[in-house]
């Protein structure tokens, strides 16, 4: 545990020894602040005259502003997570310091969890920045604390998922740019793949003149593919959570997603034993 903490501290400090930490926090502060201000002004405009804006009454604050904003922050972290994770292992490999780290009396799990915790620390810093915007509103208006806290947990879980994937990709590559690009591509793919699932019809799309057996097989494959595409989408599970609906499967999805990619990172780091 002490070793994990030492690695975590070292990695977390390293974010702010390079421009990466400042760039990421600065970008989140500017973009989330701007998005929140614009959305909040729009909410105020609608609230002043709801009927003129096709609303029967003042729209629900949590549903109309808080949840979409938190989901937006999760998406923003997705775009910025490659910047956080790309250097974790790739830079060590590039500089050759990975050999130094691996020859220390450290277990693989201490290295991986230390680096992962440091990256999660960065996500927490980003959440604190987001919390400043929400804190101002919290001061002036009545916001449901449970929904807000659970919404922030949702964003954190989304961030943890993106970070775990980035950590794995960083453990595979030697170059930071390659690692960052691959992480970004994979995150984006997981993000947009659900749209493809939504576009697929719910019923069996196989032509009616096909033999029954072939039709059934095509229908089964189509059903499995559709379900998989809908479930794998990273923000789909966050939608309900951000609105204050606690469903264990949504939380489990993110936890299992992180567990799977951390497991893959273990395997990637272990590969040095059989690669050499």
């Amino acid at each position, binding site marked *: 545990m002490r070793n994990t903490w030492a690695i975590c501290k070292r990695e977390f400090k390293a974010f702010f020894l390079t421009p990466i930490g400042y760039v990421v926090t600065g970008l989140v502060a500017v973009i989330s602040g701007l998005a929140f201000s614009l959305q909040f002004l729009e909410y105020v405009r609608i609230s002043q005259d709801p009927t003129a804006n*096709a*609303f*029967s009454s003042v729209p*629900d604050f*949590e*549903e109309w502003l808080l949840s979409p904003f938190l989901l937006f922050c999760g998406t923003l972290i997705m775009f910025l997570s490659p910047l956080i994770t790309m250097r974790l292992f790739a830079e060590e490999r590039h500089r050759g310091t990975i050999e130094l780290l691996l020859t220390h009396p450290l277990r693989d799990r201490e290295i991986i969890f230390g680096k992962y915790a440091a990256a999660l620390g960065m996500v927490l810093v980003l959440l604190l920045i987001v919390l400043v915007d929400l804190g101002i509103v919290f001061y002036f208006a009545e916001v*449901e604390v*449970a*929904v807000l806290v*659970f919404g922030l947990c949702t964003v954190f879980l989304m961030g943890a998922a993106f970070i775990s994937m980035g950590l794995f990709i960083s453990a595979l590559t030697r170059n930071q740019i390659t690692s960052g690009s691959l992480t970004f591509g994979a995150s984006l793919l997981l993000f947009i793949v659900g749209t493809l699932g*939504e*576009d697929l*019809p*719910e019923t069996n*799309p*196989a*032509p009616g003149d096909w033999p029954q057996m072939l039709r059934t097989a*095509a229908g089964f494959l189509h059903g499995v593919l559709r379900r998989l595409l809908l479930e794998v989408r990273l923000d789909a599970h966050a939608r309900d959570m951000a*609105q*204050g*609906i*606690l*469903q*264990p*499967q949504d939380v*489990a*999805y993110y936890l*299992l997603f992180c*567990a*799977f990619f951390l*497991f*893959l990172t273990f*395997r990637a780091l*272990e*590969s040095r*034993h*059989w*690669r050499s």
Partner: protein
Amino acid sequence: MRLQRFLAAVAALGLLTALNLLVWRQDFFSLPVLVAVAAAVVASGGWAVAALVDLASRQAAGPRAAGALSAVLSSAIFLCICLVVYALIESWGYSADLTEEGRRTLAPQTVQVLQALTEEVQVKCIFLQIDDELIRIAIRRWTGRNWRR
């Protein structure tokens, strides 16, 4: 190794062609799309077989292939465990509404009415705010056709 690369390239090309044809024809089960998908599937199957053969031939050479095989197998098993755990949790069906007024929960009266239903009902939704995307999805679901503004 050269055959593996060739098959991988054919699989990627097949997938790319299939996706483009799908966008053009708007029908997954049209012949050109199916041919491209079949080519991609056959090529990826060939690639997998070639990779396994290559791995098996290297087995005698040292622990490298065994290590790779063990990593792939353990990852696949772990993925299966994750999927099973997720399916189990999902089948539990628990849900909690954290809003103070219970805005995301059906009222007991509504639940009573729904439970009393004995036959299929038709639900009509009226949206105050018209969203093009929503209409597009709805029309496609109900008529099977695409809609453009």
